[in-house]
């Protein structure tokens, strides 16, 4: 090969590009965070909150890229297939990281095996809500009422595979309720019909229903969580009422499988710092969500959660599909 000036420059440039990451400290360029849902949704909002803080810790911008479609599985498939160089990370949720294998037979990733886990980002406890004029006054009465009338009632959800679908499914099958399932395209329209009294009840992320509960346009029976949440101080928890139903949705940060340990540590650390920031803690409270603490935080906590949730949700969804 004749060495012209052009090839020499190209060779030097190529060397520089390939050699750089080995010498320089990660990260040396902006990082892409894939959110597998539309901008403005619950996963997107929490991702933007924490990545903005992480960008400051890491000294590089984290750019949120929304790749929506097929219940978030398109974006997560893309994340699973990306280079494990630390410049592509993703934030999935309970749907993409636990329910998806049962719902999508051709899924191109395995939530427990295709990713390098970073950490749970937040839990958003589910809240049991109904239209304003449903007669029961508290959760016990409501469960009895549903037991007697559920076949005449309508449960609204945001589409198969959505959080409200999965949590409703677990709720209804656990207590033996058989309402008609009314499918909406997203939580917004479903909530709208709940406020308008077209449908009877829902089990959905607190984040989505807090404004309506505080304004009294819908009724809240309980938060399916061990402790009361700051945004809904007057709504009791299922635990204090002695009802065995705990259900939280969650978001989790992952990277493609094979991410070097030192990069993983950096990301885990940066995310952890973000979740400890008082300003972010306050935002979490407003959203009715909580940050993972203790053993829940970090890669091991996430791996354990994914395996546990897949084991819990898959049989319920498979049974539903078999019907």
């Amino acid at each position, binding site marked *: 090969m004749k060495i012209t000036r052009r090839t020499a420059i190209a060779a030097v440039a190529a060397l520089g590009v390939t050699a750089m990451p080995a010498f320089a400290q990660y990260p040396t360029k902006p990082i892409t965070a894939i959110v597998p849902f539309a901008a403005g949704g619950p996963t997107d909002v929490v991702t933007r909150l924490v990545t903005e803080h992480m960008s400051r810790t890491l000294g590089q911008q984290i750019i949120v890229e929304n790749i929506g479609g097929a219940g978030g599985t398109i974006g997560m498939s893309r994340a699973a297939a990306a280079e494990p160089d630390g410049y592509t990370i993703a934030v999935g949720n309970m749907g993409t990281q636990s329910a998806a294998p049962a719902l999508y037979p051709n899924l191109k990733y395995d939530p427990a095996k295709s990713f390098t886990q970073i950490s749970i980002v937040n839990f958003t406890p589910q809240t049991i809500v109904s239209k304003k004029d449903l007669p029961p006054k508290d959760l016990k009465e409501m469960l009895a009422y549903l037991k007697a009338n559920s076949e005449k009632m309508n449960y609204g959800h945001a589409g198969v595979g959505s959080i409200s679908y999965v949590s409703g499914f677990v709720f209804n099958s656990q207590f033996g309720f058989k309402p008609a399932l009314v499918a909406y395209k997203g939580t917004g329209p479903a909530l709208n019909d709940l406020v308008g009294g*077209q449908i009877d009840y829902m089990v959905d992320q607190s984040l989505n229903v807090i404004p309506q509960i505080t304004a009294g346009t819908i009724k809240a029976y309980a938060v399916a969580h061990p402790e009361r949440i700051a945004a809904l101080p007057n709504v009791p928890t299922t635990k204090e009422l002695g009802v065995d139903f705990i259900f939280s949705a969650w978001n989790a940060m992952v990277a493609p499988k094979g991410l070097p340990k030192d990069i993983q540590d950096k990301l885990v650390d940066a995310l952890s710092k973000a979740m400890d920031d008082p300003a972010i803690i306050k935002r979490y409270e407003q959203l009715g969500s909580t940050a993972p603490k203790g053993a829940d935080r970090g890669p091991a906590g996430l791996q354990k959660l994914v395996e546990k949730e897949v084991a819990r949700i898959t049989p319920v969804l498979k049974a539903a599909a078999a019907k």
Partner: protein
Amino acid sequence: MWDLVSNLQLGLSVAGSLHNAALCFLGCLIGTLIGVLPGVGPIATIAMLLPLTFGLDPVGALIMLAGIYYGAQYGGSTTAILVNIPGEATAVVTVLDGHQMAKQGRAGIALGIAAIGSFIAGTIATIIIAAAAKPLTSLALLFGPADYFALMVLGLMFAVVLARGSVPKAIAMILFGILLSTVGTDIETGEERLTFGWMEIADGIDFAIIAMGMFGFAEILRNLEHREARGVVSAKIGQLLPNFSDFKTSFAPILRGTGIGSLLGFLPGNGAVLGPFASYSIEKKLAKDPSRFGQGAIEGVAGPESANNAGAQTAFIPLLTLGIPPNAVMALMIGAMTIHGIVPGPQIISKQPDLFWGMIASMWIGNLMLLIINLPLIGIWVRLLRVPYRLMFPAIVIFCCIGIYSINNSPTQVALTGAFALFGYLLIKLGFEQAPLLLGFVLGNLMEEKLRQAMVISRGSLWTFVDRPVSLGLLVLALIVFIVSALPAISRSRETVFTE
């Protein structure tokens, strides 16, 4: 009444502060400039520019985002008129007469009347929101799935009116549009339909892909048939802004469009998409000479554009009073609010009156800014049309591809747009119109969802559509519209049969 005045005063004092007015201006300007790129609609623009607002205080940030939204919306109309590409569903009818006007060298007038119509519509809609947001919300909540279904049926009747040529061809296009809308995951069972195992379309085909392929690209293909250097728009650019007689013709359509748009906009079920279609159909029915429509009738731009803008504005009602987003753009606004630490919902009015009224006042200021930004810009846009077509069309194609790519960061969707371009070209050659197909597509999505919800809730009884007064009323209206619009067509075809 006094409340209203003092509230608006509070709002104006917030939104009118130098800081916030500057943000509003900046938002409108950037929104217009980005929204004018073919394919980059309001959603893409807001998502792209969201990080810009991170350093701002919440009120300022929301005012700026709202500005970006109006700007992008208006920028979309500009593309519709200049290069025949509807960036979103509400701009489809603007294309019909707007682009014809541009072809006749009246682009400036079309853009001008769109800006003026939007301003008037925006002003009226702002007052409606300020004065009647609460009662309108309770009215909107009366609408259940069955009623929305009936509304969509009424909308399909407009599509028949919309058609220029043969009615059977129009109906075929509507049905094909509805068929296209069924591609994707069935919302009730989660089963994929007509996707042939292709994940990329598991959520259905995006509106922009069909619109850009069938309107924009297909139009380019057709233009390239002729070997003329000029291309899209004739060289002569007459008068740049609408004159008094243009304005006189447009005034009533603007007011009617505003009324229709405001009315449909506040319905949380995304009724706003119907606004421009309804306005266009009504103007065409009221016109002394309906054959002018589709040939560059100014009413066909003025009415729908006003309806569009009024609807875009009143769509804030469910967001502000219920905290529930009626469409994807508003869902994004809610996300933006949450990022800024504002929990949207009914309590905003009492807890953060400065935010609530500031935002309402900023709507009006935003509309004023748009007028100020756009009237001088018209000259530049129109001059842009003088660019030789051989330079122009590759640029349009590239910008469209960027726009499509940015929807989901997916290259396959760009390829899909190409496929729709070929299909659209075929339709043009065979004398089919694209607008009814797009309307069928948009309404098909909503219709199916609402029909199935209504049927699940009524446990399969069709009587639900008759039992509910709102639904019954709308269906009767749909029947009347159908008879009125179909009768002349039937009698005309009889005449032709007889003359033969």
